[in-house]
């Protein structure tokens, strides 16, 4: 049973690891590069995967933050993430997982409605972030935000835990989300 669990390994010293899961290789690579360029006190590690489960024979560090990247231009991207979600332990969704939807700006290319992703994130009680990974500025800003979330999830920020961040983010959601 190759399910990804958040607390099955010991943490590394001052290291924070994020796992980006998404079918679109080029976008993941760009996001990873942007994240590593951010000014971060912790040592960042970025793992990229097309889908879960991960190959089991590899020695890898504990995953502190799980980001599911969905390209709204590709239904395949959404399907790939939906399949991967089955291989994630439920405790990840207590603040250590989030969804990232890219490409909403170019509506004529979108084959996945943004509400689909919003509903998916709502089902998993996790935040959803929107950006355009193909645009440098948007990507850099998102990278910084993710780096900060990663630090919190890894426990490197005193006084803020992943769970408290989750509840902070949740309160900013509009009430109409419950109707979805």
């Amino acid at each position, binding site marked *: 049973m190759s399910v990804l669990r958040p607390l099955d390994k010991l943490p590394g010293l001052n290291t924070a690891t994020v796992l980006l899961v998404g079918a679109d290789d080029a976008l993941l690579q760009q996001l990873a590069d942007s994240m590593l360029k951010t000014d971060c006190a912790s*040592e960042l590690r970025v793992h990229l995967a097309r889908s879960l489960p991960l190959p089991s024979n590899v020695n890898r560090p504990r995953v502190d933050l799980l980001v599911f990247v969905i390209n709204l231009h590709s239904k395949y*991207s959404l399907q790939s993430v939906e399949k991967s979600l089955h291989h994630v332990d439920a405790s990840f969704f207590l603040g250590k997982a989030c969804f990232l939807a890219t490409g909403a700006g170019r509506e004529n290319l979108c084959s996945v409605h943004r509400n689909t992703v919003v509903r998916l994130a709502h089902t998993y009680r996790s935040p959803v972030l929107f950006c355009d990974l193909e645009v440098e500025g948007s990507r850099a800003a998102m990278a910084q935000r993710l780096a900060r979330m990663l630090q919190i999830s890894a426990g490197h920020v005193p006084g803020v835990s992943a769970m408290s961040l989750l509840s902070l983010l949740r309160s900013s959601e509009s009430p109409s989300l419950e109707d979805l």
Partner: protein
Amino acid sequence: MDETIAEFIRRTILKIPMSEMMTVLEAWNFLSESQLQTLNLRQRKDSLAQSVVLLCEEKCASLSDAALLDIVCEDLDLFDIEQFKSSFKKILQRALRNVTVSFRDAEENAVWIRIAWGTQYTKPNQYKPTYVVYYSHTPYAFTSSSRLKSNIPLLGQALTVASKHHQIVKMDLRSRYLDSLKAIVFKQYNQNFEIHNPTAPLQERSVGLDINTDSRIIHENAVEKDKVQRITQETFGDYPQPRLEFAQYKFWKAAMLTTTPQTPTQSLQFHNRFLETKFKSDLNGGILADREEPLRCLIKFSSPHLLEALKSLAPAGIADAPLSPLLTCIPSRGMNYFKIRDK
């Protein structure tokens, strides 16, 4: 005349097809006009060969004359082209009094033909010509799309008769790039350019060792990526793909559907492996209710370079590898317009 020369000439004559006999003998320019006129082309080839040998003996043919006959036979194709051209032009001119036909010889035994169409009563329209490229060593011709559709059967007939074939078949293969059409039809697209660059395959495989990649980035699915690359390479090869802009699939679903009041939606699934298409209709059924004619669906893919785009789908993470054979069979089957009946 030597026995061996006589035999050689006899055998050479036997190799010539009857339809070309006169052309070859005239081109040979050894037998005189009067001599050629005495030949009866309606007799059997053996007897004709004997008559020719007798005529050659009258003129004391030498070995070099016989060798020249041999060369003329090899050069048969040159005369084929001229005959083709005149025959083609005659057929069109007989059918439509007003038609302009021009030829240009190109490399690789290609004949470029330009046809400006008129009718019995109107002059040819020089602004809407049809272009045809005929490769005389092959049974293939390429034509530009003609806006004057009524002339296409005549064009086909002229090509068939002039090139001495029995029938003409229209291939479901269209593109704006003649070179790509040629590559597909003559099966020349899968030729690998031999570039000796031993470092190239290493760079593709060693994903983590790329100097541009930060060592803090780890690719978890390297094995899977390699598999996708391998499958893509097996399907599409290493070579540049021929250039097409469209692939079109016409589907017919012949099954009859009945609506039940409880289920307002009907779902039709065409070729599950290819595209899942769902048709929803309202409570009364709409176009799907109690349908007698088959349901038709047209799917068109367009791209500046369709095959390269398809090749990049799986590596880019937009589709699963291997792709549907309906997409990958395009160059090997030589068609990009498909009609599929779904039973």
